């Protein structure tokens, strides 16, 4: 049996037809001919880790939303791009601390809202801040506003922020971050008091032109913006979960800016494709091994101290973090008030001291469980901890948990050892907040209860003397380490790459400040 496929009718006419069709197809926007470099035409293409969900700062779900909000709204003050934490004026032409509980401000006179909602006034500031703390709003971001009492409007563009008690994080979190975004009072009220997935009125250097969920958000230059002109005509923000995909897209020229995985840092240190550059920023995250003080197996402090000394942090950083991060000394990252220069336990393991402490504890045949999230970095870290603890005779069984189950560990009374990682905002109060007695069994999974720590946490938030405040947080971390419940590992890092035509504007922890991105 033989089929004569070659006898298909492909005469001269058909050949010409086919050739013409193929030629025409080649001119269509397919393949190489249709590709555009990412930063051509004044469009900046950046990767975000997740998609935006709301345009309402009161219901912002964090960084993904804030990247966009910070570009289309204004705040009294904004984070200053650079390697040191600080702020700069934004919508405010003046802001000053009149006394520990009163902050006076004056607004610029050249900022207006879109959709005919007029100039930005002090009433808009009052409305925006007070709706965050109002019970009716049910804002999950209310704690960021701390002891805010109200805003006194003293003029069309002047007002006073009134606090119930001094609140240092006002300058590092409340005003320059999520809750500091100023929305239009008239527009929001006209929308029924709640802003959904679409903006009701914008005022920043960019406007949100479109949002295709899970695909991209497009920001475009605000034609009415009177401040310093933004560098880009458009910014496309692409939500990409997978770090490897983002790296491939960057190397293919489809992204101008992305965070890269720690495993790729070495490669990018050698060469960034397309003439780009690598920037390595420290992160604010903190990773640590916790020990549940309520568990019967972990009652002996000598045993806990033995575990602290037996964990070799440099080995973890080399194997799980590819040597791209530094060891941490506590929960407060370098650059923030209260960072400890050194902990009482060195990063490298001291097996002799660990064995000595274990012998002093009198514990034998110690067997413990270690709960970790199902991410490669954490499982690798857990395996190293398992191996090093085996060196002093402690057996560790690793429980790898899916995120939902893992983050419910506060309810797990059988929790023994846990490898944990918390996110952070640039104020130390956000770090210590989770380790108070009140948080035991909620986010304080070690059930660390220390009256002095609780007092330090409360008082440091009110302390406006920076030096005193720093001492308080250093002491608070000393207490954590002395309890034997914590072995601090790292703050991780935020390595990013950008193409040659882009000048990134980043916070010191590597997060983007898109409105300030420039061109080279």
């Amino acid at each position, binding site marked *: *049996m*033989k*089929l004569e496929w070659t006898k298909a009718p492909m005469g001269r006419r058909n050949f010409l037809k086919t050739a013409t069709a193929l030629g025409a197809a080649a001119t269509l926007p397919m393949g190489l001919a249709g590709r555009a470099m990412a930063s051509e035409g004044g469009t900046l293409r950046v990767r975000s880790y997740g998609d935006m969900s709301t345009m309402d700062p009161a219901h912002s779900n964090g960084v993904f939303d804030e990247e966009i909000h910070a570009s289309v709204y204004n705040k009294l003050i904004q984070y200053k791009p650079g390697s040191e934490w600080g702020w700069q004026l934004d919508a405010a032409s003046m802001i000053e601390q009149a006394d520990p509980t009163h902050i006076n401000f004056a607004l610029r006179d050249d900022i207006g809202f879109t959709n005919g909602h007029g100039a930005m006034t002090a009433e808009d500031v009052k409305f925006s801040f007070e709706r965050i703390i109002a019970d009716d709003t*049910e804002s999950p971001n209310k704690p960021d506003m701390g002891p805010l009492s109200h805003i006194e409007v003293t003029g069309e563009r002047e007002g006073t922020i009134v606090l119930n008690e001094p609140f240092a994080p006002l300058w590092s979190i409340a005003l320059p971050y999520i809750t500091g975004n100023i929305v239009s009072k008239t527009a929001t009220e006209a929308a029924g008091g709640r802003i959904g997935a679409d903006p009701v009125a914008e005022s920043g250097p960019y406007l949100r032109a479109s949002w295709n969920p899970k*695909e991209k958000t497009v920001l475009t230059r605000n034609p009415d913006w009177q401040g310093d002109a933004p560098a880009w005509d458009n910014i496309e923000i692409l939500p990409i979960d997978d770090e490897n995909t983002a790296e*491939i897209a960057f190397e293919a020229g489809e992204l101008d800016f992305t965070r890269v995985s720690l495993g790729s840092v070495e490669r990018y240190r050698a060469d960034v494709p397309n003439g780009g550059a690598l920037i390595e920023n420290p992160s604010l995250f903190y990773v640590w091994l916790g020990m549940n003080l309520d568990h019967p197996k972990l009652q002996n402090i000598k045993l806990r101290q033995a575990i602290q000394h037996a964990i070799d942090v440099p080995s973890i950083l080399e194997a799980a973090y590819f040597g791209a991060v530094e060891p941490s000394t506590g929960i407060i990252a370098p650059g923030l008030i209260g960072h400890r220069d050194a902990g009482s336990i060195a990063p490298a393991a001291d097996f002799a001291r660990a064995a000595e402490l274990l012998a002093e504890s009198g514990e034998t045949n110690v067997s413990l469980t270690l709960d970790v999230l199902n991410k490669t970095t954490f499982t690798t870290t857990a395996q190293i901890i398992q191996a090093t603890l085996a060196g002093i005779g402690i057996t560790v069984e690793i429980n790898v948990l*899916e995120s939902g189950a893992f983050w419910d560990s506060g309810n797990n009374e059988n929790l023994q050892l846990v490898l944990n990682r918390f996110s952070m905002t640039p104020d130390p109060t956000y770090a210590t907040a989770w380790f108070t007695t009140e948080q035991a069994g909620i986010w304080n999974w070690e059930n660390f209860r220390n009256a002095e720590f609780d007092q330090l946490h409360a008082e440091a938030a009110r302390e406006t003397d920076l030096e005193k405040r720093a001492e308080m947080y250093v002491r608070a971390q000393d207490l954590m380490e002395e309890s034997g419940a914590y072995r601090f590992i790292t703050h991780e890092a935020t390595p990013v790459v950008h193409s040659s035509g882009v000048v990134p504007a980043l916070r010191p922890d590597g997060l983007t400040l898109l409105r300030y991105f420039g061109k080279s």
Partner: protein
Amino acid sequence: MFIYTVKRFALAGLILIVAVTAMFLMIRAVPGDPVSIMLGPRATPELKASLIEQMALDQPIWKQLLIYYGGLLRGDLGIDVFSGRSVVDIVFQQLPYTLEMIALSVVWSAALGIALGAYAAAHPNTIIDRVAAAVSVSFVAAPAFVVALLALLIFAVQLQWFPAIGVGEGFWGRLNHLVLPSFAIGLSWVGYIARLVRASMLEVLGEGHIRTARAFGISERRIIMSYALRIAILPVVTVIGVGMGFLLSSAVFTEIVFARPGIGKLVIDSITTRNYPVVMGTVLVSTGLFVLSTAIADLLNALLDPRARSTK
């Protein structure tokens, strides 16, 4: 045929109810407090209570299920906990992206697989047949995620023929962005369909009516194309119908690797964040698609082969 169609769709409805109920119970059996996960660390007790009430999580499971089906009958799949948007809007906004990717995968893999299988069957035990067999089995064995990553590195990064991420704009832009994802999930289907068509063709080509056709002097090409292939293709129709489930599950990783929107990515995001309404909406629609495609495959089979109607 009418009665068969009615019976088949009734069965499809029943399957859908069972699948959705099972998923409803399973997602609630997953460990972890959904409210804490959804609202994050800073949620106040008042906020948590409000969300529990909003999602009826304070009700017994059977009552939650009744509430869900009540909403379903009204066309209401609930509200996304994070954005406050209607789940119907969210799911149907994402669905076309997944459907276009699956459709293109099916079309190109079926076209190539059928041609390859038919050609191999027409040349049994020749070098061409053996090469086709080796190629087909290699395609079947190649994990789709490996194909996806290799395709990205070769065709997007090195050759820069096709875009790596996103969905593009306009017809050609969208088609351009579909090439690599549909290649990645369709490749193993080429091999699978080719093997299936070859085996089926060989069986048909040995039957009496084909011998009769040859005895009448009908050309081999016509016998293959008009008589044998029409019968041999029947199992492929069924396989493609059932394959929708496989393609939908492939869409999950493909959408992540190629950073495409779609219901695969949506379901992963919503399960991770315990966004129950979106999980259920996505499962309902993807299960519905699977059930519908298998039902259509059965009906097509019945239409093409009357024996199928009587055996069902």
